[in-house]
């Protein structure tokens, strides 16, 4: 289990790094898809099969696909690609890296100074998730559906000519 986890983790890191550094957005998105798929594997190893399924179905299967549709609609040509490359100079990464390093340090400290729990991971089945969701978390479900409704209406309105 641990080995699977580590392999999947490595793949995730590499593909995410690639995703943010590509000049061509389609390449970036495809790398992102790969990272999502390996993320699903990680979920599985952590005992969350339902989350893994959702990751593949919703995130990789709908969100990124939507992204790809839009990017295709943009019909980016070689000029755009050239511009992308021009924008990605080395100097532009310096300050973000500093900021990120600071944040990383803070988060790492929080993580390492929190007590751990070394018991065996239990698998949380979809049935349990469903039971919890529709008993205690029903209010949140309603709110989430309202959020989706808002997104739907907004997208419809904004997208019209």
């Amino acid at each position: 289990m641990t080995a699977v986890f580590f392999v999947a983790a490595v793949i995730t890191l590499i593909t995410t790094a690639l995703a943010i550094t590509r000049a061509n957005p389609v390449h970036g998105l495809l790398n992102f898809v790969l990272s999502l798929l390996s993320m699903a594997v990680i979920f599985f190893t952590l005992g969350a099969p339902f989350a893994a399924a959702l990751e593949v179905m919703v995130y990789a299967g709908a969100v990124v696909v939507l992204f790809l549709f839009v990017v295709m609609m943009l019909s980016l040509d070689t000029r755009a690609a050239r511009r992308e490359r021009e924008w990605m100079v080395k100097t532009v990464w310096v300050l973000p890296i500093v900021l990120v390093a600071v944040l990383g340090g803070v988060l790492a400290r929080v993580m390492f100074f929190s007590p751990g729990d070394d018991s065996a991971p239990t698998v949380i089945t979809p049935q349990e998730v469903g039971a919890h969701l529709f008993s205690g978390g029903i209010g949140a479900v309603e709110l989430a559906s309202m959020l989706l409704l808002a997104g739907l209406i907004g997208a419809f309105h904004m997208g019209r000519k």
Partner: protein
Amino acid sequence: MISWQMPAGLAIALFLMGLLGLLARRSLVFVLMSIEIMLNAAGLLFIAAGMRWHTADGQIMFIFVLNLAGAELALGLIFLLRLRARLTTLDGDAANLLRDA
């Protein structure tokens, strides 16, 4: 035996990478993608928490994060399209009409 700190550390790393992409990339497509990476990383952290506490709450939160990401992306992409139509470029820096003179 995976302690919760490993997926948490991975989540942190992914989050930081997403942040990096958000700040460093100029094209709006990559900005939106970086946001998605960050949201995904947050979701992983929730799953890790659920693993640590042996509850279903982690996955429930992950569902809501997903929900949020979907709604937000839909609108974000529409903005992207509108911006592209108006400014004929995907450059984030071109959208600076709110500047002070």
